[in-house]
């Protein structure tokens, strides 16, 4: 009997050792198509191509594998590998989460390593589609910040006062995000604060991230683009570059000599150490039967990537295993107007030249608005989630994208790639249909 107990104890301890290491995972198999052969849908703007009017399976399809090792009650580590189509057009697994966590108390934890900057409500679980109602988080908001990971540290504190639960998270770090062109966006620093308060069926969340970013080409540098200085009321003007001679100036005088803020404007346009500040407010109601979720976001990026706002509201209900939902979302850039300042004598000279040519004069010389992205679009979504088996769900979702305005360097807005004229000029809606199978294990 003693031997048996000893055996059982040994067995128990080996089991408990094994239970400290856990492998789990999640995935989605999805099929997507649009209603138009010329319009491709892309799940995120790092994808080189998307799905047009044939079913494609590589937009939302994703597989994540997580290994979690609990060293003791205070220390644990997590490694999460993620395989989804990336900027290189393959499914090579990437390290999405890799950190060591220290929890001196059950309600206080510190992490060091790679995690996801939780700029929006569903940023950090945006690949775990099983945990969300939609087939993917709303594009109009979530594409405004193609932020994935952050390498850094964070601290989370949880607590409650009466029936109010709260959670505060602060993080600090940086990251370099690669794009299909070979270029990247370098986030020099990212510092954020997230506060969540929940009461009964309600959850409120406020998040702010202060960040600094540069957009670099494949060689890792930020080339100077040509800027266009508008000097007449009907949009005529000069191409200007800080190091090159200026058409309206004397021989050997560069534009940088006569336009006093040309360098500032150049840095503004070309995204050299520009801000990438994100403010986000979210509210969730879920009483088990009815649910509503809304988010608003503001991006201060003050560069060729214009400032922007976006919002959505999702409403739904649960009828047994079925959860139908509808959503409305919009995204919109808020372009800033920038002006060139000339030395007084050259301002006078250019004004005199415009007057002499009989063209309409303008008070200030604007940086051509075509230097900045401009997007405006909205989306109406309807879908249903079917929880047909434990840890598995099937979803069907139809999105009606309405591109309203895309000028200048703007493309066709978030989520869509177009072969041909801009969608907004065609006054056309785009329907995207998605069927997906989500699972966790």
């Amino acid at each position, binding site marked *: 009997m003693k031997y048996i107990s000893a055996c059982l104890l040994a067995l128990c301890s080996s089991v408990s050792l094994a*239970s400290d290491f*856990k492998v*789990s995972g*999640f995935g989605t198999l999805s099929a997507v198509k649009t209603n138009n052969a010329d319009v491709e849908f892309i799940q995120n703007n790092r994808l080189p191509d998307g799905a047009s009017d044939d079913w494609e399976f590589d937009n939302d399809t994703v597989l*994540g594998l*997580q290994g*979690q090792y*609990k060293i003791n*009650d205070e220390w644990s580590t*997590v490694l*999460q590998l993620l395989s989804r189509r990336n900027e290189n057009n393959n499914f090579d697994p990437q390290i999405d*989460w890799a*950190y060591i*966590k220290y929890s001196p*108390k*059950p*309600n206080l934890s510190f*992490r060091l390593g790679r*995690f*996801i900057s*939780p700029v929006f409500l569903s940023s*950090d*679980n945006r*690949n*775990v589609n*099983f*945990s*969300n109602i939609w087939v993917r988080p709303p594009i109009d908001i979530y594409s405004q910040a193609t932020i994935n990971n952050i390498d850094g540290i964070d601290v*989370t504190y*949880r607590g*409650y006062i009466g*029936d109010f*639960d709260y*959670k505060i998270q602060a993080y600090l770090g940086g990251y370099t995000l690669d794009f299909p062109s070979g270029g990247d966006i370098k986030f020099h620093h990212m510092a954020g604060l997230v506060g969540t308060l*929940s009461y009964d069926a309600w959850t409120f969340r406020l998040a702010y991230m202060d960040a600094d970013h540069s957009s670099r080409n494949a060689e890792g540098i930020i080339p100077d683009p040509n800027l266009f200085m508008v000097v007449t009321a009907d949009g005529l003007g000069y191409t200007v570059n800080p190091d090159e001679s200026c058409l309206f100036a004397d021989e050997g005088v560069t534009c940088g000599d006569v336009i006093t803020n040309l360098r500032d404007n150049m840095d503004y346009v070309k995204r050299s150490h520009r801000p990438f500040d994100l403010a986000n407010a979210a509210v969730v109601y879920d*009483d*088990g039967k009815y649910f509503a979720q809304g988010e608003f976001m503001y991006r201060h990026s003050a560069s060729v990537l214009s400032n922007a706002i976006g919002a959505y509201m999702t409403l739904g209900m*649960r009828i047994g*295993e079925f959860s139908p939902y509808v959503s409305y979302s919009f995204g919109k850039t808020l372009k800033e107007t920038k002006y060139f300042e000339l030395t007084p004598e050259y301002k006078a000279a250019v004004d005199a030249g415009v007057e002499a040519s009989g063209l309409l004069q303008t008070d200030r010389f604007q940086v051509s608005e075509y230097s900045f992205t401009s997007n405006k679009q909205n989306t109406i979504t309807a879908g249903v989630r079917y*929880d047909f088996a*434990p*840890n598995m*769900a099937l979803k069907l979702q139809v999105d009606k994208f309405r591109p309203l305005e895309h000028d200048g360097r703007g493309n066709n807005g978030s989520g869509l790639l177009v072969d041909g004229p801009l969608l907004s000029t065609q006054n056309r809606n785009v329907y995207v249909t998605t069927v997906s199978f989500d699972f*966790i294990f």
Partner: protein
Amino acid sequence: MKKLLLLAALSIAVFKSAWADIVVIVNSSNDVVMAKSDVRRIYMGKSGQFPNGKPTKAMNYESNNALRHQFDKGLLNRDPAQIQALWAKLVFTGQGIPPTIAANPQDMINFVKSEPNAIGYINESDVSPEVRVVIKF
């Protein structure tokens, strides 16, 4: 007649188990006082500690288990599928480790009686003196 009586007894048993109260149990050495909201916090991943500050080691049943269904619906006011979705978010964003899974109530009782910081739940009819009941609903 015997058969009929047996049938009646069986149907009463079925009736009882379908309507039996659930009790939330902790280790007999744990003198914590808990409200329903404290239990909700633990099973919905909002807290990893008892009201007295001790860390919890929670245990649950598989999402297709009848007792789990009754617990999720009755106390958490959610379907097990919704609770699974909630935990999927927490697990894969590093915000929590879900309760370990018990194969059956006896498994749950064994865990709770051997682990000082354990918390679990069983049918009231399965309560043994080796565990302490903190809530009944």
